[in-house]
Every structure is written in C-alpha cells, then in structure tokens.
C-alpha cells in the first residue's frame, strides 16, 4: 500500500514537523515535572515557557496542514481521517502543556514520598505518546505495518492507568494529609494519566483508519 501522502511532499514534511513538536513537548514535560519535584523552579518555568511555544507551533502547523488539505484539494479520499488524526495528536500537545501550566499556577506541595510515583507515572504516559507518534509516522508512510506499534501504545497506557491508581490509593491511605491536599495530589495524578489516554485515543483512530485503508 502507498504512503498516505502520495506525492504531496510539503504536506509530508509539515506533518513530520508536527510529530516532532509532539515528541519534543512530551520530553519537555518529563524534564519539567522532574525540575518541579526537585525544586528547580527557575528551570521549571523555562520548561513551561518552552512547552507553551511548542504548543503554539503545533497549533500553527495543524491549521496550516488542514487549510492546505482543503484549499489544494489534497488526498481527498483520506483528508477527513488526517484532519481528525491531527486534531487528536494536538490534544496530546495541549495536555502536555496543561500539566506544566497547572503545576506552575497551582504550585502543589508534593511530599517527597510521592516523587518517584509521579516521575514513573509521567515516564509511562510519555512512553505511550512516543509510541503513538511512532505508530502515526508508520501509518503515514507504511499504513499496513502499525499493528505491532499500536499494541505498545495500549501497553503503556494500561501501565499509566495502573501506576496512577496505585499513586491515588497511596495518597488517600496516608493519614498525614488533609482531604483537600489529597484531592490536589489526585488531580495531578489524573492529569498526567490523561496524557496516556489521549495517546490511546490517537491509537484507536489509527486502528480504524488502517482497517478502512485495507478494504
């Protein structure tokens, strides 16, 4: 089966850049969370600044690709799918930025005993993102070869779910914290876990598009 973009090379380049932005945003997220937990707040704010710039760039690229798809009537048979795919990937970038923004705004006090749990949760969620970006690259170029990669996305998403649940249980079972602080800690676990859910949403769409293209 042919590449989805056929000979529309500029579109291919822009989409590749959009995926690079997604990966970069997830890497900045990991660094940002680590800096926050280690109290490197100056560096953390720089990470937040960087992820905001990446998110803006992602929006620009997405709208640019979408407009080009329709104004130049490119890949008419698949453009609806590409459009929805880009919008779902954009949700991953938005979520990455959202997490750092919430840390920056709400300055949650995270007790040291939970630091490793948050870091591991972020690591698993970011792995789901990295894998779904790999799947998307594969889909755009060799649509029939993504099954293996999609399987990994689902694995990392379930790992993120598992760690998030364990973290929330740990938080709610400690008797050293007020209920409002437990809620606050749960909120951040939930939002980091949501990143993996967004990656799973993209994987679900990719799975459907692959079936559609094989018919």
């Amino acid at each position, binding site marked *: 089966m042919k590449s989805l973009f056929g000979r529309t090379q500029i579109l291919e380049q822009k989409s590749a850049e959009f995926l690079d932005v997604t990966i970069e945003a997830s890497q900045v997220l990991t660094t940002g969370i680590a800096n926050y937990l280690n109290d490197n707040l100056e560096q953390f704010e720089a990470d937040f600044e960087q992820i905001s710039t990446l998110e803006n760039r992602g929006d620009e690229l997405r709208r640019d690709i*979408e407009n080009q798809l329709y*104004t130049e009537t490119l890949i008419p048979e698949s453009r609806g799918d590409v459009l929805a795919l880009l919008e779902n990937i954009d949700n991953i970038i938005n979520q990455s930025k959202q997490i750092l923004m919430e840390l920056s*705004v709400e300055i949650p006090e995270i007790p040291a005993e939970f630091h490793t749990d948050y870091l591991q949760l972020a690591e698993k969620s970011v792995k789901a993102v990295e894998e779904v970006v790999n799947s998307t690259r594969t889909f755009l170029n060799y649509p029939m070869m993504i099954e293996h990669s999609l399987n990994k996305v689902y694995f990392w998403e379930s790992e993120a779910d598992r760690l998030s649940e364990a973290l929330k249980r740990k938080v709610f079972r400690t008797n050293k914290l*007020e209920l409002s602080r437990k809620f606050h800690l749960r909120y951040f676990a939930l939002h980091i876990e949501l990143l993996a859910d967004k990656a799973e949403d993209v994987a679900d769409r990719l799975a459907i598009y692959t079936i559609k293209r094989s018919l």
Partner: protein
Amino acid sequence: MPSISEKDITLAKKCSEFIDLTNRVNLMFCEAVKQYICCQMNEFDSYLEQIRKLEVRGDAIRRDTESRLYSEKLIPESRGDVLGLIESTDDIIDEIKKTALLFSVEIPDIPPIFQPEYIALAQICVETVDFVLASFRVYFNNPMAVRDMLKPVYAGEKSADKQAGKIKRLAFLDENLPLCKKMHLRYFAHHIDLIADKAEDLADRLSIAAIKQTSNE
C-alpha cells in the same frame, strides 16, 4: 456554486434561528455571572431558568434541523459539515448551561478581589462566542468571508486562557485562602474558560467547512 442560503432558504432560516437562540443564551450568561457576583440571586435564578428553557428549545431545533437535513436529502454535499457545525454550536449552549448550573448548585464564595476578574473572564468568553456566531451566520451566504472573521475568535480564546490563568494564579498565591477554596475558585475559572474553548472548536469546523464550500464554487 450557489450559497447554502440560495439552495435551501428554509434550512438557512432554521440555522439562523438556532444561532439567534445561542446568542441569547450567551448574552444571558454574562448577565447571570454579573448578578451572581453582585449577590442578586433572584435575578441570577431568573437568568438560569431562561437559559435552561432555551437549551431545551435549542435541542429541539437542532434535532429538527438534523432530521430535515437527512430525511429530505437537503444539500447532500455539505450536510455533514452543517451537521457538525450545529452540534458544535449546541456544545456551546450546553457548556454555558452547565457552568450557570454549577454556580447555582455549588454557590462558590468569590472573594471581592476576584470578582472583577471573573466578570472580565465571562465577558471575554461571551465576546469570543459572539464572534464565532457572527461567522457561522455569514457561512450560509458568503463562505469566502468566514476565514478572516474567525481571527478574533482565536485571539479571544487565547485571551480567555490568559485571564483564567490569571485568576488561578491569584487564587493559588493567596496565602489567606485554604486549599479547598483555591481549588473551588480554579474550578469555576476553568469552566467559564471552557466556553471559549467550545467557540474555538466551532471556529475550527467553520474554517474547514468554509474552505470546502468555496472550493466547490
């Protein structure tokens, strides 16, 4: 290619009625927030009641328009787009109703220092919705003009994000507020801000629908 209005005037009128209704809900929301903040609870409740009724009426218009689109096989080349636009508009109404209802149910205690900030946020969101509704109206007659009209929607959404961020920062930096109140204030800023996000979603759909419409011309 003729515009959607020229092809089916009744459909365009139905959509226009739906846009009018959304516009009224939008304007009422801003007034409702102001009344809530001024502790005019009777006035606030009256706006909430009207918003609820309009939301029900909006659902009826939406379903009627959608079923006409398909049962009478109207504008087959654009009906998917029109359907998506109507649903995204309905999401704005739903979000407004939900936010007004949250005020009514949870009765958040908004300290005076935050009050003008919430009013400002509501006004930005209402303006953003207003811009996108104006663009939606134009889509039926002059889709070529839509793209330029959407620029203030995107600017409005960014501005709403900024204002909501300002409120959240103010709340979390305030040492006199307990954490539970900070979270409550954040929750309301987030929900008002979501209205502008829904306007942006509609703008994204409109942008593509307008390009498709003009490229068919």
